[in-house]
């Protein structure tokens, strides 16, 4: 019953998206006519998309969006999106392109056109004191590990690796419990942890383990925009090939991720 409702809903959305694009002209023409590419990016996910002191949106993803605009020879405009509205903005035509830390999932592919290859990826890792010298996930066995209540990897961390999860409501509590020494490590998104390790306040901490549960991120265009999709696919391949992603990671203070390195090698 529930599943059916969701499927019907997804179908309706897909069909309505198709019918909209069928009437409108090619989105590339619209962008060029307008002279402006409108991109949905995150504004609260440092360093992938966040606000600087003047209120402008900056970060890795805005830089990638600027690359696309330069390629098309138009200006770029950023629209801040959040996880719960990013796909809707794209469907409604509020944005032409969405680069917003979105995990690539099959059910999302039914609603928006996610471009292959994936441009980025993130997974689960831990933040812990350098002095602990953690080397493998099995080192967490029997140790208290801070987490966020409701995160899907809590169960895996305790069931597979034997860690005792100490889950808090928000990241602020978890970070301060880690700092106070209530837990040996904090299990969280690796992309957020990387940003934390660059913070001088957290200089004694590191991200020591290999990332697990790695899930690729996908940037998306509206369904049916095949010409734009082909162009984006070409651009992503070029970003990987030229090392643009690695370069941006370095620029924004993120250690080069295994995914970005692997993709760079793959396209050589």
């Amino acid at each position, binding site marked *: 019953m529930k599943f059916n409702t969701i499927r019907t809903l997804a179908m309706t959305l897909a069909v309505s998206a198709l019918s909209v694009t069928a009437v409108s002209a090619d989105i590339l023409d619209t962008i060029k006519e307008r002279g402006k590419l409108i991109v949905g990016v995150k504004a609260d996910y440092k360093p992938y998309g966040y606000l600087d002191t003047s209120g402008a949106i900056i970060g890795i993803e805005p830089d990638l969006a600027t690359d696309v605009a330069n390629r098309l020879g138009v200006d770029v405009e950023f629209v801040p999106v959040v996880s719960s509205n990013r796909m809707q903005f794209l469907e409604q035509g509020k944005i032409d392109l969405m680069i917003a830390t979105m995990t690539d999932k099959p059910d999302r592919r039914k609603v928006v056109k996610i471009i292959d290859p994936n441009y980025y990826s993130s997974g689960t890792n831990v933040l812990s*004191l350098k*002095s*602990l010298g953690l080397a493998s996930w099995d080192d967490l066995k*029997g*140790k208290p590990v*801070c987490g966020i*209540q*409701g*995160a*899907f990897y*809590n*169960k895996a961390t305790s*069931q597979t690796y034997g860690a005792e*999860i*100490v*889950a*808090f*409501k928000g990241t602020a*509590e978890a970070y*301060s*419990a880690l*700092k*106070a*020494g*209530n837990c*040996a490590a904090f299990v969280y998104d690796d992309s957020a942890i990387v940003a934390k390790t660059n913070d001088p306040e957290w200089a004694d901490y590191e991200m020591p383990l290999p990332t697990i549960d790695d899930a690729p991120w996908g940037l998306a265009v509206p369904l049916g925009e095949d010409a734009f999709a082909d162009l984006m696919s070409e651009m992503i391949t070029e970003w990987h090939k030229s090392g643009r992603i690695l370069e941006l990671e370095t620029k924004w203070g993120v250690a080069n991720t295994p995914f970005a390195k692997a993709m760079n090698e793959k396209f050589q």
Partner: protein
Amino acid sequence: MEFIFEWFRVLYDETGINLPFLYDSYDRNRMVNGFLTTIWLSVVCLFFSIIIGVIGAWLQGSAFTWTRRIVNGYIQVFRNTPPLVQLYFFYFAIGTILPKVENDWGGQSPILGSFAWAAISLSFFAGAFNVEIFRSGIEAVPKSTVEAAEALGFSKIQIYKDITLPLAFRVVLPALNNNLVNLVKTTTLAYAIAVPEMLYEANQIWSDNVNVTEMMLFMLLAYFFLVGILVGGMNRWERAMKIPGYG
């Protein structure tokens, strides 16, 4: 036993009523541990809050002004602030400034963990109410009774221990009962500082299985029965302590 657990898995497959803490051994262990933690935390807090109440009420009758002032100050602080704020204060503020000890994994951790802080904080919180509850009982003991005991040569501590307190206890039981019931329910707040009690474990289970409705219903019933047992026990005690012709 396995047969019964399997039946709940079938129930889920057939009807969609998902009770993983019955058929999944991992979730079952979590739930049992959560249940035991809740009971243990409740017992510890009940015990210490009553001790604090009895001693506090005794000190309130002290001849020294400063003793009375300190006890009153304690009551005001703990009665006028929310228990959740107290928990956060103890765990995140006091906990971090206390000396640290070497732990099993080679790091430094605070001397007291989340369970200890929850027990301390909730005992003091309920204890503040208990002091006032016991005071009401002590004041209900007729002055003439105390005077009679003094005339018989009882010392001050003997009067409190053997005359005032036993009589006061009978008067305060209904009010004490109320406060202790509240205390058992307040142990759910320990969830905020990651004490693995029942609500915390239930939250972990419903995040993994997305069966919020079932877990909420189960929580309601579990606490209903847990508090029911406490109330039943207190009522029995009340009846057993009854003195014919008094209160």
